[in-house]
């Protein structure tokens, strides 16, 4: 084995090339090669692909049901967020529609997963900024939402719960009381989070005016999700192109104008509250009924293609399935928000200080496994 591609380059002069990752406390499954001139980053070259497992190719030799487990593995923090668009696209191909109760349960699972994912992000961001309490608190509160999701889906993180035609099983009968109790607790916790972390002078000093993204750049680079809302654009697929029954619930899209790392944090914090508001309304609206439309035999689509956009925890998740009438899809194309966040990160890192790199990197909520698929 040679040096595994880890050559140290000398650019001459005062410039130095630094390799961050893949073994680094702050890099995850990903490497970024930054060129520094003194304290400033003058070039950033990302090197993704450490977790490329060929999910798109594997989807071509599995049938529509078998595809669900391996397509949720790229983002197991947000398992429903990544399988829901796939299932909605497959439903268009197979030509089935889920009953109303199933649609509502899907919304509950999607919002629970959004909270689970955002709390994981908050915990890791706390570690990145050297704030250990902010790792422990969200990680502990996340377990409560995992308990709620586990009572519906059956496992801790990988539910494989949403299937074409509905959902796998019904909610437990006492879910509403448990959920409202947890939301009541967590709403009080959010205020405490603000006190210890978001209004903390150390935290604001490290994130305010760091990594400012302009609205024009954000649109040009294709940034989606919370990062786009943090620059002042109120784009949310749940409002723009409602799927499931999101048009029946009332919620706000939190936005900020600054576009810096702090704005991205605050937008995600406010989204936690909005997700709970959506779930409260859904729990009032939901009525007993069938949860699944039973499909006889092997699922087989008509020849043709379909695509669906949904709002996952990290941004817009886009699925495009081409079918040739067989039981396996002919082609599955996944367009993930993390890959676009990676492009945004390269843009933001150039010109910033090396010490600001962790604050910028994880404020974008870049999840390498999702980007690599």
């Amino acid at each position, binding site marked *: *084995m040679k040096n*595994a*591609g*880890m050559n140290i380059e000398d650019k001459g002069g005062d410039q130095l090339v630094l390799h961050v990752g*893949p*073994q*680094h*406390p702050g890099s*995850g*499954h990903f490497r970024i090669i930054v060129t520094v001139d003194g304290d400033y980053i003058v070039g950033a070259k990302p090197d993704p*692909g*450490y*977790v*490329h*497992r*060929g999910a798109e*190719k*594997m989807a071509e*030799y599995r049938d529509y049901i078998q595809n669900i*487990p*391996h397509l949720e*593995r*790229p*983002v*197991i*923090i947000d398992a429903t967020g990544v399988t829901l668009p796939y299932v909605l696209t497959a439903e268009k191909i197979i030509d089935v529609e889920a009953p109303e109760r199933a649609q509502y349960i899907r919304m509950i699972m999607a919002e629970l997963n959004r909270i689970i994912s955002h709390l*994981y992000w908050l*915990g*890791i961001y706390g570690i990145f900024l050297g704030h250990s309490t902010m*790792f*422990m608190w969200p*990680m*502990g509160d*996340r*377990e409560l939402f995992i308990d709620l999701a586990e009572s519906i889906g059956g496992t*801790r*993180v*990988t539910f494989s719960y949403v299937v074409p035609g509905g959902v796998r099983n019904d909610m437990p009968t006492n879910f509403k009381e448990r959920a409202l109790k947890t939301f009541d607790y967590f709403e009080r916790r959010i205020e405490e989070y603000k006190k210890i972390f978001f209004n903390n002078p150390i935290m604001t000093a490290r994130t305010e005016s760091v990594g400012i993204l302009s609205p024009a750049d954000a649109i040009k680079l294709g940034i989606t999700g919370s990062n786009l809302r943090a620059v002042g654009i109120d784009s949310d697929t749940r409002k723009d192109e409602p799927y499931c029954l999101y048009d029946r619930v009332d919620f706000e899209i939190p936005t900020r104008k600054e576009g810096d790392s702090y704005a991205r944090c605050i937008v995600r914090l406010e989204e936690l509250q909005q997700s709970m508001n959506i779930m409260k309304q859904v729990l009032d609206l939901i009525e007993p009924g069938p949860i699944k439309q039973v499909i006889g035999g092997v699922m087989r689509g008509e020849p043709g293609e379909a695509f669906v956009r949904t709002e996952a925890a990290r941004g817009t998740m886009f699925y495009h399935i081409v079918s040739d009438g067989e039981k396996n899809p002919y082609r599955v194309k996944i367009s993930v928000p993390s890959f676009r966040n990676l492009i945004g990160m390269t843009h933001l890192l150039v010109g910033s200080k090396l010490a600001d790199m962790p604050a910028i990197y994880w404020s974008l909520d870049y999840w390498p*496994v999702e980007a690599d698929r």
Partner: protein
Amino acid sequence: MVNDPTLNLLVGKVSDILDTTIEKNVREPVRFLVNWGRLYSLWPVHLETACCSIEFGAASGPRHDVERFGMLEAFGSLRQCDVLVVQGTVTRKMAPRMKWVYEQMPEPKWVIAMGACAISGGLYMDSYNVLQGVDKIVPVDVYIPGCPPRPETLIQGIIELQNKIRKSKV
């Protein structure tokens, strides 16, 4: 002077030092003491290979808290680490890096294969870019099944590893 083995207590392999310096009848207590010191201060390398890292992170959280059992936080230099927890799928691109990380760790070192993908490829058994089991490139001490394993399962795996260390020769 330098070759005097009694002065070389901190240089060289522990087994050699034990053979040359310690009397036969106290070797067993010394072995116990050394292993006892090792098994409650396991430092894992922070090498995330795939999605099992989420449950690894959850295990460090307040509810499960692996530190109770002597597995410390995954932060710090790999030169000070003694456990490599392979957190999930190892792809063709990650495999040489992982082996490189393993080779840089000081002795004694142990490897935990966490998750079905690290054990045998798991869900990705027919993927073109996935290594089918990490034991092809590094020696594995404990296999933890699951996709992903629950934090409780990870804790059980760590306790199994500690049992192994407790019985091992120095």
